[in-house]
């Protein structure tokens, strides 16, 4: 018993070591979205291309879609755009854009330069829907199922790896359910 007591510091050190080691490499900026499993918050916003057209949550129902939050001022959005083009053109993924805290002019400049992978773009200059979605930095990408329920959220750039390992499995699952 006494000898076991001598090993206590070693045991404690190993336990703390294991605990701390498990934390290495985890990205602390990646936060779990509280919206997963919940419907997309209600909104009523203009379409970017057509100010006359009002968009609401019905836009995100009926089909599994990606909701991509972007802005012209966001450098990482320029980086991921090429891959979004590929997803929409080659893979036929339905991508709805959420133009976040941007100006129309700037947004059009961005799309003219890089192409438009979005089926529809929600224009959210005040970041209202973004706020309700818990967006804290563009780009962010949500997987929305056919019932308009948030299934997944990815913070940061979408690339081949993210698509294959994170988004595609969720999309396939969402398609299987509906």
């Amino acid at each position, binding site marked *: 018993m006494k000898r076991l007591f001598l090993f206590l510091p070693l045991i404690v050190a190993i336990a703390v070591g294991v605990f701390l080691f498990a934390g290495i490499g985890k990205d*602390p900026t990646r936060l*779990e979205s509280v919206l997963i499993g919940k419907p997309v918050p209600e909104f009523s916003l203009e379409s970017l291309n057509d100010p006359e057209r009002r968009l609401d949550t019905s836009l995100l129902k009926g089909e599994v879609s990606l909701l991509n939050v972007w802005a012209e001022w966001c450098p990482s959005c320029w980086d991921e755009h090429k891959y979004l083009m590929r997803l929409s053109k080659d893979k036929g993924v339905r991508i709805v854009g959420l133009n976040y805290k941007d100006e129309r002019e700037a947004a059009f400049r961005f799309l003219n330069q890089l192409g438009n992978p979005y089926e529809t773009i929600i224009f959210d200059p005040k970041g209202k829907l973004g706020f309700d979605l818990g*967006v804290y*930095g563009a780009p962010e990408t949500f997987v929305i199922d056919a019932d308009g329920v948030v299934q997944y959220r990815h913070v940061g750039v979408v690339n081949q790896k993210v698509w294959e390992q994170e988004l595609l499995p969720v999309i396939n699952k969402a398609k299987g359910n509906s």
Partner: protein
Amino acid sequence: MRRFPILLFALFALSFTVQAEVKDVYDFDTRAEEQRYQNLIAELRCPKCQNNNIADSNSAISQDMRDEVYRMMKNGASNEEIVDALVSRFGEFVQYKPPVDRRTILLWAFPAIAVIGGFLVVVGVVMRSRQREQQGETLSQEDKRKAERILAGESDESAKG
């Protein structure tokens, strides 16, 4: 080189004078209301610039969150309602003070557990050393006499024989 401490002190002193406050553009009817707002934004955490509260952070999202806190306050929302509204969007992460529930009970109870544990260890150590003292006294009567003799300069008989 002698000037170095003075320079260091000057830099240190300067750091207080340049500390920037987030500019307040909100109007409050009463001092208490403003205080309530300040307390709220001090204990809400910015999701973008982590380990800043939204009072200190200049990021766009913190600005939005301050606006929302102010707007909800003006609409007569209670502190809990405001915090809940932000938690429902950004997650529990935004609370510097997580609520006490089954998942966080260990976190909250740990300081008490550590203090009680430390106290028990100290009590154990003291009791044991006291026990040893008592035992030592009764056991070494013979040795004690021997030691006294040696210290007094007399030769040890048993070693001789």
